[in-house]
């Protein structure tokens, strides 16, 4: 059998060697030096229609099921939502005066006043992503002002951060991915910790805490804002397991994300004002922490500096 086939007249072995070398170069350049950010931005932007086609069956079925709401159901839901809004409004009345109080106290203390952040809503696109990592795709991109590293939250808690942006879509790394870690404080007593993902969608690890640390099952962990990526004060997870294992240096602490990451639909992108990110100091901080914790970085994806 003649082995020289096709247009180029190369044997299959030669082709495999060439393509193997090419893919090795691609993998190394992409995973360690992220040289192809721009290329994948353009390619993903051109491929956006493909994502919308792939999303079409799911969005169609959603639309169809929305159509079949009965009048009665809609009335009931409307009533329920109105009640909920009035409840939340009454809570907000107190919140407003608390904010005022807080600002006055901060002025007395000469501390900077925290402003509220600009948020944009986004919806998940039902598109399959890399099976080896926990990422989702959302229907907002560069056109809507999304930037890389932007925190993503919903009404329950923190979801993750944007890792790549295209023209009108972007990908979000969930907090329970193995490459993700987020700096938190325990709400009850202000102990600082780092919560890293495990790869299991509803499980997080609180890493490197001494065995006598005052953390209990049921404690709420909120973002500390130390990494500069996530704004301060958003709830992240609830401690589910606290185990002082004999003979181990650290306590084994597991937590469950407050946002139900496997049933996401709507979420909010929080864009931090630029002055809130003192870049230089953070990068120094991160390289320091990287040297201690080889597997985790402070609130960032591993590929970023």
């Amino acid at each position, binding site marked *: *059998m003649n082995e020289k*086939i*096709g247009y*180029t007249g190369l044997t*299959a*072995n030669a*082709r*495999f060697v060439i*393509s*193997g070398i*090419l*893919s*090795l*170069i*691609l*993998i*190394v*350049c*992409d*995973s*360690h030096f992220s040289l*192809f950010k721009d290329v*994948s931005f353009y*390619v*993903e932007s051109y*491929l956006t229609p*493909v*994502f919308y*086609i*792939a999303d079409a*069956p*799911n969005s169609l079925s959603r639309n169809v099921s929305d159509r079949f709401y009965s009048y009665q159901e809609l009335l009931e839901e409307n009533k329920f939502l109105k009640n909920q809004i009035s409840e939340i409004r009454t809570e907000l009345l107190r919140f407003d005066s608390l904010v005022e109080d807080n600002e006055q106290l901060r002025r007395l203390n000469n501390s900077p006043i925290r402003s509220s952040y600009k948020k944009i809503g986004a919806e998940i696109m*039902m*598109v*399959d*992503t*890399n*099976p*080896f*990592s*926990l*990422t989702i*795709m959302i229907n907002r991109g560069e056109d809507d002002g999304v930037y890389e590293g932007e925190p993503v939250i919903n009404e329950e808690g923190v979801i993750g951060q944007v890792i*790549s942006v295209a023209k009108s879509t972007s*990908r979000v790394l969930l907090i329970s*991915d*193995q*490459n993700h870690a987020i700096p938190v404080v325990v709400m009850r007593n202000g102990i600082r910790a780092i919560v890293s993902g495990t*790869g*299991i969608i509803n499980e997080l690890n609180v890493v490197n805490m001494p065995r006598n640390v005052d953390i209990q099952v049921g404690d709420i962990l909120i973002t500390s804002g130390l990494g500069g990526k996530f704004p301060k004060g958003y709830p992240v997870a609830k401690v589910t397991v606290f185990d002082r294992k004999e003979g181990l240096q650290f306590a084994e602490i597991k937590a469950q994300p407050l946002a139900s990451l*496997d049933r996401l639909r709507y979420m909010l992108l929080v864009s931090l004002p630029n002055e809130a990110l003192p870049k230089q100091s953070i990068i120094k901080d991160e390289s320091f922490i990287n040297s201690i914790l080889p*597997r985790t970085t402070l609130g960032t994806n*591993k590929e970023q500096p």
Partner: protein
Amino acid sequence: MQNQVSIFVIWLSIIVALVLSLIKLPIVVDNLVPNYVVMVVLYWVIVCPNKVNVGVGWFAGLLMDFLFGSTLGLHACAIAFMVWIIATQFKNIAFYSLLQKTIVVGIVNFIGQFILFWTEHIFGVVTVDYNFLWSCVSTLVLWPIVSGILSLTHSFNRNYEG
């Protein structure tokens, strides 16, 4: 004889496979989704090895990397590897019976998925998810159906199918 399949049909089928593999199904059946791109590419390698070879497989894998948002080159490497095994080790596979072809494709896909897993593991932290074994099984089971559908696009090799 074998040149009757137009390159347009081949790429159309690969693109359809890419879109199909992007569709997210309910979580119960999501693990059972076969690897459509691998099935289609391996079918064309068997039917017309002079048009679809390592290069086409590599490029289809690269498109898959862009669409899945994984590290560029991972799927490309894995699919090129699968095509290379078929093209060099099974030169007479076009004359095998459908059952034999199915077994060969299933095993090659299984090895390819392991290669994918290990390359990903070497270059980064991955989540160990043994559910990909289910997708290997469904690829094996569904390959005869896919090859039957694809053989409708051309008519010359009916007598090879056994």
